[in-house]
């Protein structure tokens, strides 16, 4: 199993470290040729505008879309969720794969960044998942084919922070920063079922 981690900017090394602990080959993706032979791709946290511009400049948008259309799993965390979404309410380069509407920096500025324990649909075990939200986006609306995996409280309402649409997975928090690899194992199962 070989997983590509988009390494244009952001916390890609943290994802690689978890994958390596799980015995999976992780390759850094900066150019289209780096995608050769990958079984799935993780798009890490970072700044979505930075990643989007570099992805356009180095012709990564179409190859990533083709991988997704070929059924290979893609997982976006935080900025990766923004990058995979169809609509983020402003003009910036996007893959536009996931049928979700995203609000950027939805919980406030950095002083409002937080940690919380979430109940996550479909992730192994009864334990709550300790989720780390950093200037995090949220999912305002989902299309018909999208399954909601987790929600968090915001202003007395519950908002969507993890979702899946077939081979596409998104989380607005950072499982790569938690000492809990259940989300990575969940993603690797998606990749195994495709190989």
């Amino acid at each position: 199993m070989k997983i590509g981690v988009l390494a244009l900017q952001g916390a890609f090394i943290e994802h690689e470290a978890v994958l390596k602990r799980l015995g999976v080959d992780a390759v850094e993706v900066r150019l289209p040729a780096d995608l050769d032979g990958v079984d799935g791709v993780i798009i890490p946290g970072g700044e979505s505008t930075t990643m989007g511009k570099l992805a356009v400049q180095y012709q990564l948008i179409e190859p990533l879309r083709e991988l997704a259309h070929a059924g290979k799993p893609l997982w976006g965390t935080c900025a990766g969720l923004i990058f995979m979404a169809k609509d983020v309410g402003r003009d910036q380069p996007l893959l536009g794969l996931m049928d979700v509407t995203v609000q950027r920096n939805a919980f406030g500025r950095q002083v409002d960044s937080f940690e919380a324990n979430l109940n996550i649909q479909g992730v192994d075990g009864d334990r709550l998942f300790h989720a780390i939200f950093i200037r995090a986006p949220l999912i305002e609306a989902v299309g018909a084919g999208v399954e909601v995996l987790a929600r968090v409280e915001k202003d007395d309402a519950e908002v969507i922070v993890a979702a899946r649409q077939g081979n596409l997975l998104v989380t607005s928090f950072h499982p790569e920063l938690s000492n809990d690899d259940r989300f990575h194992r969940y993603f690797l199962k998606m990749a195994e079922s495709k190989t």
Partner: protein
Amino acid sequence: MQKDVGSVVVKRGLAQMLKGGVIMDVVTPEHAKIAEDAGACAVMALERVPADIRVTGGVARMSDPELILKIIDAVSIPVMAKCRIGHFVEAQVLESLGVDFIDESEVLTPADEAHHINKHDFKVPFVCGCRNLGEALRRIGEGAAMIRTKGEAGTGDVGEAVRHARSVLGEIRRLQTMAPEELMAYAKEIGAPYELVVETKELGRLPVVNFAAGGIATPADAALMMQLGVDGNFVGSGIFKSGDPARRAKAIVEATTHYRDANIIAEVSKNLGEPMVGRTVESMPQAERIAGRGW
């Protein structure tokens, strides 16, 4: 549902999200937009870039809150701002404005000749400069969530940033070879908290993100710092004191991402126009050098 804000994890976590990126000094909302459009992962909101602080002289302080707020409104990326070393009230003001990161910076005139801010008191994360491992670990001990080299800001001379990065990273490499019983003596020698010396040895790197800063002016400078082993770059005067800031900013972003790819660094370095004129650190009298500020 319990939500924990301002924890060490979320403070250090934002720095982790900035890695592999370029943080640019900006003095107007228009500069901030140019920086964001060029692919900056964050901006540093300032009244004057370090090269101008040197020219103006006098006491350099925190920027006008109105300017910082305008820059916050202009961009979607994180906004940082500087306070003086030890000036915890300037830091309280910056936190209340909603800046995403505070740089307790030697570029401004220090407000305390012996003490830095107790950064554990704040929900907002701090970045601090350092010249060596002891200084880096003292700042982390005080609560810094991110470290940068000091370099010699406002010169366009990358030599000091290289010196400081080599010092920190070389000392970490030497630490790897030490026996456990040598660590306390080493902690004493470099003036660093023992627990952080042990943690750094175990990790083989600083416990927080470590950027380069001070004198970076070209795409090759940015890639040099990355190959030396830093996590990302601050570029201050080097962009907006050059002939074509938008183009140079974009080139430095691309060189930071593709830092091992000489073909790409060559390509983005073409026709960038005039770099900032710069000033060699060697030619400067000691009194004009600012990297020595910090305790």
